């Protein structure tokens, strides 16, 4: 008897079901504990508050505070990408789930897609909380003229960001304790390079080399576009380049993530590292 491959439609449905199932676990797991929810909204406010007060101390206008609040909200997505996307295969391996994913008759990308959907939905709830709480506590001004365009840029940013997360997930797959340390390492440097706490990023003040390095992170591009629209009162003419850049990021990162995942899986099998724990 030989194994027959499923028809395309059935295979697609299988993968969508897997993505939905993984998303459901993520949504359920992250929202069943109200303490975590409150902490994940409240914690960024501590850092945001410190930077808002710093801006006031050196005499910046209140729009700088608004930029920091948007930056703080976007950082929540980066943190989610790092700890719940990039490091996820590491956690799964530690808990003994990775082999189950690998023997399941679905694409690994559908599992990652489920994680990304669940993670982005969860984080969107938290980011909204951060923005609302930030506006309430720090009383900063916004000039939102085109909410639809902000929504489009926001979604494009998330898609590109989570595609980067998928790429990292495959690279982190074989990590032991490096996973923990690398995720830690990618926090503050990315906050710096993305200009999350700066009033603006692309301009004469931030050095060109930092702008180039920061532009490799989709969050930097999306964050700048959202700030132009939500604080500067800009329109499509001020962000069309950002839109193209975000689409390009996704189109580049997604296939690379897919190839990297296959490569790392096969390397893991050859080296027998897919089931190693406590490294």
């Amino acid at each position, binding site marked *: 008897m030989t194994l027959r491959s499923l028809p395309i439609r059935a295979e697609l449905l299988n993968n969508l079901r897997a993505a939905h199932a993984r998303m459901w676990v993520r949504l359920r797991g992250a929202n069943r504990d109200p303490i975590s929810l409150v902490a994940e909204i409240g*914690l960024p406010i501590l850092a945001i508050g410190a930077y808002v007060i*710093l801006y006031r101390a050196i005499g910046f206008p209140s729009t700088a505070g608004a930029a920091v609040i948007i930056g703080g909200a976007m950082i929540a997505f980066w943190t989610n990408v790092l700890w719940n996307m990039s490091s996820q295969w590491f956690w799964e391996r530690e808990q003994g789930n990775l082999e189950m994913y690998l023997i399941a008759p679905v694409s690994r990308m559908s599992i990652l897609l489920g994680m990304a959907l669940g993670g982005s939905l969860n984080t969107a709830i938290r980011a909204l909380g951060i923005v609302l709480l930030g506006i309430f506590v720090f009383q900063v001004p916004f000039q939102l003229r085109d909410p639809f365009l902000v929504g489009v840029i926001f979604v494009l940013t998330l898609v590109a960001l989570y595609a980067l997360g998928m790429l990292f997930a495959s690279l982190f797959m074989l990590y032991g304790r490096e996973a923990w340390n690398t995720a830690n390492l990618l926090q503050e440097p990315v906050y710096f390079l993305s200009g999350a706490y700066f009033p603006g990023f692309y301009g004469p003040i931030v050095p060109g080399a930092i702008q180039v390095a920061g532009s490799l992170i989709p969050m930097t591009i999306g964050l700048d576009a959202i700030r132009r629209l939500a604080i500067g009162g800009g329109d499509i003419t001020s962000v069309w380049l950002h839109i193209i850049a975000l689409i390009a990021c996704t189109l580049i990162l997604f296939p690379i993530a897919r190839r990297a995942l296959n490569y790392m899986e096969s390397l893991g099998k050859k080296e027998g590292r897919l089931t190693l724990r*406590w490294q």
Partner: protein
Amino acid sequence: MAVADFVKAARESFRVGWKIESNWTDPVLFATYQVIRPLASLLIVAFIVIIGASVGATANSAFYTQYLAWLIVGNAFYAFVLQIMLGMAILVHVDRTRYEVLKNIYISPGTLHPYVMGRGLVSVLNGAVSVVLTLLFSVAIFNGLLHMNIPLNLLGVNLLMLIPAVILGIISLLAIGYMLCAVNIVSNRMEFILGDSVSGIFFLLGGVIFPIALLPSYVQSISNVLPITYLLNAVRESFGLLPTASYMSDLFYLALTTLVTLIIGITVFRLAERRAKKLGLFDRKSEY
């Protein structure tokens, strides 16, 4: 338990902790990892001040170089807070759930106290490496590369003022770390939140990147009972960035808050230990 036994157990715990935290890579890469995070934090606030200076948000340019020096020292020594809080907040979870050894440590003659102390001292060492490297890199970047003439002379530090302040500060942070371990012994949902929460509160209220006088008055009273506030004041005084006249009073309040923190830390830990034993929490698996 005799002091010699305690010290021996703490030393072994330190050895194990150091290996767990450092032997996953080579020393150079490890040191790089240790310095990049605090350095990036510093660069964020430093760039904010530099951007402020470029757009002339505040007229006086000397204000910015003075402020930058003040900020570099505060941010560098905040590495102790980050390392100790994050390291000790996750310790119980990792040993109980991931490596499943907490119960074995508890039933050993050494018990948990020297173990937690030894592991906390690893975080102190990591913090010290971060502080030294951050200060050196800051001077190299801002004075060497960017020629900003920041009034920060690392060779002119008054060590007689610095060392007592740092020792007291570390004791207080370890006592707070003890409390975090205690909370995690009896809880299984706080391990990823506690370290960030406490270090975030200290970042906002401890005078790390701005003077606490800028906080609303009702919040300042909280800052005034935190050891970190006095630690950073005393450290900045030893670097000559604040008037030295208030050093003794800062040191006194640092000692006082350290003593209170120590008493609370040990009490909370003992209570948590007792409760965990009663409810059988030392071997609880809680991964989800």
